């Protein structure tokens, strides 16, 4: 076995050497930057909704993920730029066939009750997350990581004990994969892989996540949780890097209405809130130091229904391409949304790590040229003023989705004379309609599970459960399969994006941006982190 040792250099080591600051007098300074710290080190932010769960094995939404990352710590964390940095693991070795990963765990990691965090805690947590008994909605993540026997365990064909993870000793963890996965370690910052304290789960059952019961290993512990109102976490003195934590207390408030949240932010009650659609230009003019827009790992697109029983007109790739060409994406990003989103001609978000946006002919054309080409394509396909194309466009009820849909239907009407029927549907109805194929064109949004292009492009696989277009192209399937094991999969991704641009099973519209207001004295926010995975322990407030 050839060993590739990849020990991760750590800035944390340097930070440990510096002494922890005293904050109470308001004159303490940040150990690295030397800025004067505010005496109030609390961070309060708005969440749109109550998260379904804050159990690492059960959590399923990004807001819940934010909370879980504060309360628990996995093998690795992400730094401000989204790169891996040591968490409970200090490093790992991988076997020559890239199938066996052996992690070394730090010996000073502790649970909030003082117990050491061991490799066995990870083994327990992963087996628990995959087990049919827990029935976690995120059990598929273990499968996505290609952990040996994950599929069989989830399907109930094997016992959870057969999962390819085992603790060699307290500080050595071995994970066996069923196939090499170049971005496997990237996935270890995801909450589904975080450790869980077995004695606590055994003692309290599903009540273990309540304040007072929960034992966690992150920089913070849960002190208060009132569903639909707020969740409070305070620093964990047992955390191995506690002396470098500055924020004392973090409160997430559930505020459904974004305009109410903005009012409360402006009244000084919140340190972070979302910018309502369309308000970014005004707010960034008024509060330039507070309104921020950074790339965020999601793509917004419209999909065509390519099922056999779907609309005949849309079976012609030229018709689909014409519709895609006629969308003036810049109007949508600059005038409709106006929040720093970027026009999209590829499905993969432009800021995805290691992804070079391929040359898509349409991207470099002017809108006038696109419109000409669209008219020609549609005329050749036999549609015109006397035989207009009609389309049912379905989206889920939301002001922003509505604005985009109205704008696009107008563009189609003006450029191509296409008659669009807009149908907004309540969320669950929409999902059902989309997965049953009751649409001509439907809205879609996809967010990265990990920072690598396959998280987007795998949706184009014929067998993907998320391929609601039911697009089938064996060439794409072959390229994506090859990308899984290629040393540099960029060529495959470029080819796939170019094929999609021709076949047009979907129309990429824009790449998301995270548009938020941040209190002026809040520092340390990882704006560079593409998935916007943030950790409260990296934040601090400076004295004004």
């Amino acid at each position: 076995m050839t060993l590739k040792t990849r020990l991760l250099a750590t800035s944390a080591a340097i930070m440990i050497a510096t002494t922890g600051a005293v904050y109470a007098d308001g004159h303490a300074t940040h150990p690295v930057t030397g800025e004067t710290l505010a005496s109030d080190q609390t961070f309060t932010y708005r969440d749109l909704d109550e998260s379904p769960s804050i159990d690492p094995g059960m959590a399923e939404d990004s807001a819940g993920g934010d909370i879980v990352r504060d309360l628990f710590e996995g093998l690795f964390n992400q730094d401000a730029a989204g790169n891996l940095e040591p968490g409970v693991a200090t490093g790992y070795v991988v076997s020559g066939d890239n199938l066996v990963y052996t992690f070394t765990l730090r010996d000073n990691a502790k649970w909030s009750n003082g117990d050491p965090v061991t490799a066995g805690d990870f083994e327990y947590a992963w087996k628990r997350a995959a087990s049919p008994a827990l029935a976690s909605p995120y059990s598929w993540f273990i499968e996505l990581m290609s952990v040996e026997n994950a599929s069989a365990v989830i399907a109930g064909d094997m016992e959870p004990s057969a999962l390819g993870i085992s603790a060699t000793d307290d500080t050595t963890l071995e994970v066996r994969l069923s196939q090499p996965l170049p971005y496997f370690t990237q996935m270890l910052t995801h909450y589904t892989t975080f450790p869980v304290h077995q004695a606590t789960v055994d003692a309290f059952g599903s009540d273990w996540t309540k304040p007072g019961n929960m034992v966690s290993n992150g920089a913070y512990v849960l002190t208060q949780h009132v569903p639909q109102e707020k969740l409070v976490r305070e620093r964990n003195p047992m955390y191995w890097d506690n002396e470098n934590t500055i924020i004392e207390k973090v409160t997430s408030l559930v505020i459904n209405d974004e305009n109410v949240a903005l009012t409360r932010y402006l009244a000084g009650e919140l340190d972070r809130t979302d910018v309502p659609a369309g308000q970014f230009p005004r707010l960034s003019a008024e509060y330039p130091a507070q309104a921020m827009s950074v790339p965020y790992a999601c793509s917004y697109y419209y999909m065509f229904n390519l099922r056999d029983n779907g609309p005949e007109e849309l079976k012609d790739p030229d018709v689909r391409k014409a519709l895609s060409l006629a969308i003036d994406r810049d109007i949508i990003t600059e005038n409709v949304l106006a929040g720093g989103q970027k026009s999209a001609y590829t499905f993969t978000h432009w800021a995805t790590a290691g992804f070079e946006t391929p040359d898509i002919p349409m991207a470099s054309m002017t809108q006038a040229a696109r419109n000409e080409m669209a008219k020609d394509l549609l005329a050749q396909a036999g549609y015109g003023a006397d035989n207009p194309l009609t389309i049912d466009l379905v989206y889920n009820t939301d002001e922003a989705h509505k604005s985009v849909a109205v704008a696009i239907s107008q563009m189609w009407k003006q450029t191509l004379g296409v008659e669009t029927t807009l149908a907004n549907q309540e969320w669950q109805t929409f999902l059902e309609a989309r997965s049953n194929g009751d649409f001509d064109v439907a809205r879609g949004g996809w967010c990265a599970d990990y920072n690598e292009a396959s998280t987007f492009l795998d949706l184009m696989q014929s067998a993907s459960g998320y391929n609601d277009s039911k697009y089938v192209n064996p060439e794409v399937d072959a390229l994506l399969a090859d990308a899984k094991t290629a040393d540099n999969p960029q060529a495959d991704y470029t080819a796939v994006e170019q094929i999609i641009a021709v076949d047009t099973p979907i129309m990429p519209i824009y790449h998301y941006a995270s548009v938020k207001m941040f209190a002026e004295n809040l520092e340390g926010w990882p704006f560079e982190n593409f998935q916007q995975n943030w950790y409260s322990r990296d934040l601090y407030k400076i004295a004004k």
Partner: protein
Amino acid sequence: MFIFVARRLAVAIPTLLILVVLSFVLMYAAPGGPFNSERPLPPEVLRNIEAKYGLDQPFWKQIVNYVVGVVTQFDFGPSFQYKDRTVNDVIAQGFPVTLTYGFWSFVVAVTVGVSLGVAAAIKQNTWLDYLAVGISIGAQVLPNFVMAPILLLVFTLWLGWLPGGGWNGGQWEYLIMPVLALSTSYMASIARITRSSMLEVLNTNFIRTAQAKGLPMRRVIWHHAMKPAMLPVLSYLGPAFVGMITGSVVIDVIFSTGGIGQFFVNSAFNRDYSVIMGITILVGTLTILFNLAVDILYAWIDPKIRY
């Protein structure tokens, strides 16, 4: 009277059962399900989840299991959406909140509404009457989803007097805006009903008799006119009280109070079957109980009414 109450309670049980079955059927008839999302679950994962919540069983069996669980153990099941909690947890947390601000809204709406209505009726066609009618019409046309953000803007952003939301265990400063926003339109209705009913009573013969006998106006109003004038108000108050204590999604959404109104609406959007059922049963039971309470009060106020 006892027989009346017993009979009403006996009817309540089949009513509730019908409510349960109807809600169950309607819920399942709605498209989608509790575990659908933007990211559809792989079939084997979905199967595990459905097995855990008993959704893989035939429909009739699910209803029977549900009703048996509720009746025998008062167990409303786990929430499908909030996976760390049961329906009992959701209600235990949300209902006291709603009950608190609902109760105070009720107190405010009744006190202010009845006072305005009575004052307007006694001083009919004076400036006081016009003012009272003006206030109640103003309050009526300002729905709480308009009222609440205005309050927020004025008291939180401009004046900085009150916190913009949250509950904090129901401290008074967190109560003021929810109570104001919730009570105004009820207050307006109560004022209008009180005024017209009081006017009607004041024109009856027995009031004229009382006045002819030289009784002071105060005594006429309190001892003779008030009780009969309250009858129409009372029939409005029964459902209004239930409406207030079972919460308002507008109040919960805008003031982040964590009350039950928001859970109710969200559960419908999320197809969180068990929470929909739990809260429907709670609201149904309360509606039945308060209608009964109103009927009993009727008999006490108006001796002509006998059951």
